[in-house]
């Protein structure tokens, strides 16, 4: 069953509300349920961190994001793949899919800086699909070693490193 609010995502929260004897049924996805202010069991324990996160994003206090307020020409920023809007991301504190990163791209810098103190990954790269990036990382490392070798006048080792760097650079060009 699809969410009755957005019609895009699967409904995972099903409940009946009875107000003054009048029954109404709801079938919502987590995103829309949060917007409705419905409590979802278990989301609560993550409340503080995601509440904090939304403080880092440029959402105003009403929760009506700044994107609507940027002027008549600005449009709602919405991930084309999963349908999550930037404002929803701000409220939930979670991305809907990997394409959200590219969609919200430039706005994420301040958030990452505040959470991690950095904005760029320096760690592991997937061995099979990491391809060029993995090679580039290796070249950077070799270049550092090369400089150290030259300073210590270990020219034989430096020559070996230079050859290795050249081979890796060729590999990158072949892949391109």
């Amino acid at each position, binding site marked *: 069953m699809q969410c009755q609010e957005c019609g895009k995502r699967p409904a995972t929260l099903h409940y009946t509300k009875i107000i003054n004897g009048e029954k109404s049924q709801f079938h919502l996805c987590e995103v829309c349920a949060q917007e409705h202010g419905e409590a979802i069991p*278990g989301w609560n324990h993550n409340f503080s961190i995601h509440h904090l996160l939304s403080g880092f994003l440029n959402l105003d206090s009403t929760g009506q994001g700044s994107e609507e307020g940027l002027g008549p020409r600005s449009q709602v920023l919405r991930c084309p*793949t999963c349908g999550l809007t930037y404002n929803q991301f701000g409220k939930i504190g*979670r991305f*809907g899919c*990997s394409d959200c990163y590219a969609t919200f791209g430039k706005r994420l810098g301040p958030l990452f800086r505040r*959470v991690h103190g*950095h904005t*760029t*990954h320096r760690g592991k790269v997937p061995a099979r699909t990491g391809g060029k990036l993995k090679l580039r990382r290796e070249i950077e490392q070799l270049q550092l070693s090369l400089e150290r070798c030259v300073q210590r006048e270990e020219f034989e080792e430096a020559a070996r490193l230079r050859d290795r760097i050249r081979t890796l650079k060729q590999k990158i060009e072949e892949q391109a």
Partner: protein
Amino acid sequence: MSFEQFMDKAISEWMKGNGPQSEIVISSRVRIARNLDGFPFPMLSTSSQAKQVVQRVYEVLQEDLQNLPEFKNARLIQMDDLQDLDKRVLMEKHLISPHLADESRHGAVILSQDESISIMINEEDHLRVQCLFSGFQLEEAWELANRLDDAFEQKLNYAFDETHGYLTSCPTNVGTGIRASVMVHLPALAMTGHINQLLPAIAQVGLAVRGIYGEGSETLGNLYQISNQVTLGQTEMEIIDKLKGVVRQVIEHEQRARRQVMERSPIQLEDRVLRSLGILKYSRMIDSKEAMSRLSDVRLGIDLGFIQGIQASVMNELMVMTRPGFLQKYAQQRLEPGERDVRRSVLIRERLSMENAH
């Protein structure tokens, strides 16, 4: 089932209390978060997408990973197939998260035979690879997690980009996706009150520290978990090394505090740990808060030589086995809190009677 049989099944590798520096470090854990390219994150996946993810991961397990010695007799457990009580028990053993147990769509977990590897599927991310060892073995845990990650990556396309690294559902995990944590037992620092200075200091260097099993900021049994916060912009080894360095200092402080207490008030200390042993051995009702603090005392008494003939691992085992899920599993029925206190004291006595303490 006899108590021995129940215990035998209940004990995971990490609860055996036999790793390096196990007199202070209970366990070391590394988990890495990964997502599959082309699928929305679990929060937004449809039922059929969630099932596909489980299927893909299961195929990799069967075709490739099962050849690794670590995965001999590994099993896949689907949350949909489990009773609530069985989920609670896995949670209390730290093998699955509350999120996987209660909120995941077609959540599943792959457990290695000794339960040092647990791979959660459809948790907040598609894949959460966790390696959990006893004692201070952070690097070993990372090496294993890294190797398993490589094995999965041979067959699965991960969501990854050059700037952000491994893409995760929550921005607090992005980059390396790594969360390394160490569980430490700090009774002497708690006695001297130095814990109140130490904890904020740890937080100041960018690590998170929290009590385990306690509600909110309260802790039970003087057990703390120290973990990294930053996942982006540092390499995995930098993250592990930093945590290792801080834990090493914490260990030194605790050792110093133990020496201090031993020198200043040995008889008071001996009295305290033996009283606690007496209560564990002879009480007929005990709540989990008191049980944890008595177990902490007894463990300290064993470490300092006041109590002989009881294995140090008793505390590690009992702190898990006296949790509500475990108690009810052992009793094979639902228990009200009052009944649990009775059963808890029975279980503790049964476990202690397996030892030959005097």
